[in-house]
């Protein structure tokens, strides 16, 4: 009975996450998200806007998840880590969908002020579906499982795209360097 009462009491305690911790979570991932959105729209302001829009969209759509992250029940600390991972995947996923839409809207009218497009011409000559997979794997270091969740593709599809794209990039590079 004593144990039961104590358990009920602990379950009832809810710990509020500090505002600074919550903010630092978004700050931590926003720079990576910016790099990801830059592969769709190679323009600084546009890429920043895609990230901000994605954060806003996810926070509006996933209210329950955000609430759970702000107020964690004392028995659910293990859940918090899982929820962080889930939120991260949702943010990447939103950047991917918004980035694609923005890229289509701009339809190549973005000027190459930073020189990234000319510097990474092989990469930017790839299609969007190949760019996103190779970026997430070889630059962001995501697992195949996470990439399939982010892009809504099967793991086999992701692996097939990855193999083809790696080949293309290696061949393009060796062709230029002559090895």
């Amino acid at each position, binding site marked *: 009975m004593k144990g039961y009462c104590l358990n009920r009491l602990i379950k009832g305690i809810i710990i509020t996450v500090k505002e600074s911790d919550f903010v630092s979570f978004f700050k931590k991932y926003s720079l990576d998200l910016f790099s990801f959105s830059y592969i769709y729209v190679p323009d600084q302001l546009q890429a*920043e806007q895609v990230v901000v829009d994605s954060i806003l969209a996810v926070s509006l759509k996933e209210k329950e998840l955000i609430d759970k992250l702000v107020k964690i029940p004392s028995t659910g600390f293990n859940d918090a880590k899982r929820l962080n991972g889930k939120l991260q995947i949702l943010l990447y996923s939103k950047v991917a969908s918004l980035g694609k839409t923005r890229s289509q809207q701009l339809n190549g009218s973005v000027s190459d002020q930073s020189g990234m497009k000319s510097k990474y011409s092989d990469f930017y000559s790839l299609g969007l579906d190949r760019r996103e997979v190779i970026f997430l794997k070889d630059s962001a270091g995501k697992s195949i499982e996470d990439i399939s969740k982010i892009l809504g593709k099967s793991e086999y599809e992701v*692996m097939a795209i990855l193999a083809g794209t790696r080949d293309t990039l290696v061949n393009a590079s060796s062709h230029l360097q002559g090895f």
Partner: protein
Amino acid sequence: MSCSLQRDSLFGVTPLGLENSESCEKAQFIVGYLDASLSPKKLTEIDEHLKGCDICYGQMLDSTKKFNTIKRSVPHCKLKKTERDHFLEEVSLLSKQIYDKSKGNQNLVIKKQKIEFFKKMMSFLFSRELVLLYIFLGMVVSIEFWF
């Protein structure tokens, strides 16, 4: 998870262009080894195997070269310090708003729960049975008082 693609080289080429008779059966795991997509057990196994197998070691060197080429080909755009600070400031303002909104929602939920609890208590305290009990007790007390 089993997939033929996972077992083959992710570059989709014959390892180092070696003849099949020359290739080692463990060579198919080299890309996974460099990619950190193998299980810890397999990783240790390939680590040990590499010390004694020239074919696999050669393929590892070749694949590392290819990986470096790929990493150089994939951009990882970084902002300048002032631009980065400005962007992070924008993100932190937005996340503060999200935090406040969520906290506000939580407070609203707690307020609603308190009102519900108060309503339940009142309906219990003024239920028919309890009111009758109060009257009965009142009568008993008044009888005791007068007599």
